[in-house]
């Protein structure tokens, strides 16, 4: 799954997700990707979020909606990502998840569970994309 957030120079933000879902799924199954607030979420006044992982579980928690609302309430991007992941871990200790959060200023952080999650970013005058590796909670 790719979940992406873009911040325009003007401050406008957008987010999106694209995936082919889970392998060997029951025909007709839909995951978290197209669910607003689960696969991704964005509010240009606050920030944005992208997620990946076990969509059958993640879509029950709307982790990206939760993370952006946590940003709105003053959490840092990393703390907001961790909070969203911990909410899932409390009910599903084995869940594989990855959440990346960015605020409207471009500050970012991530959290994951069940695997080493990575995310990529490129901004400002960066000559190449940087990849951040996030150990599992």
């Amino acid at each position, binding site marked *: *799954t*790719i*979940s*992406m*957030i*873009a911040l325009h*120079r003007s401050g406008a*933000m*957008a*987010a*999106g*997700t*694209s995936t*082919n*879902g*889970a*392998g*060997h*799924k*029951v*025909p*007709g*199954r*839909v*995951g*978290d*990707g*197209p*669910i*607003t607030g689960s696969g*991704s*979420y*964005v*509010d240009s*006044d606050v920030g944005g979020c*992208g997620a*990946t*992982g*076990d969509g*059958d579980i993640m879509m029950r928690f709307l982790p990206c909606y939760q993370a952006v609302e946590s940003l709105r309430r003053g959490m840092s991007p990393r703390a907001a990502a961790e909070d969203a992941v911990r909410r899932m871990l409390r009910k599903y200790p*084995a869940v594989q998840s*990855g959440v*990346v959060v*960015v605020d409207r200023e*471009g*500050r970012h952080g991530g959290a994951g569970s*069940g695997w080493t*999650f*990575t*995310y*990529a*970013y*490129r*901004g*400002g*005058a960066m000559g*190449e*994309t940087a*990849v*951040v590796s996030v150990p599992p909670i």
Partner: protein
Amino acid sequence: SPGLPLVINTWGGPFTAATDAAYLSLLEPQTSALDAVELGCSTCEANQCDGSVGYGGSPDENCETTLDAMIMDGGSMKSGSVAALRRVRNAIGVARAVLEHTTHTMLAGDLATDFAVANGFAAGSLSTGASAAACAAWRAAGCQPNYRINVTPDPASSCGPYAPTPLPPDYDDDDDDADRGVVPEGHD
């Protein structure tokens, strides 16, 4: 923060081609944030990234690949999405068409495909030789792992077709997901 503009996305490796495409597009003054997200995600769809995005990946029990995608405008909070999209490769493009050419939020399945075709998207099989082979190998291995529960024949050892079995009186659905091992290819 490295400063604006900025693009950030899940995963590294092959996904960085999407990051680069979206970031470089934002250096052009006419490109919007929505444009950048659509371009980045469609780059991943075309490249198939790690196999979890785009055509030819994650075949279902019937060996068909279907796509899910969503795009959201952080100013208007408007969102467009497609779910279980069949036979159209550019899922994020169709999601943007839902956003820009309807007042709905999500279209699904065959009727989402009809919408896509009516909006100028090409239709064709999403299967590849690799996805067909992966599905054939899964079937040859007794359709393991799979996502069926409370059905007969036993989904832990047999392929379908399956029929539902009555749930025991002390059935507790807390046990179904929490104890399930998450298979490597099982994630979105």
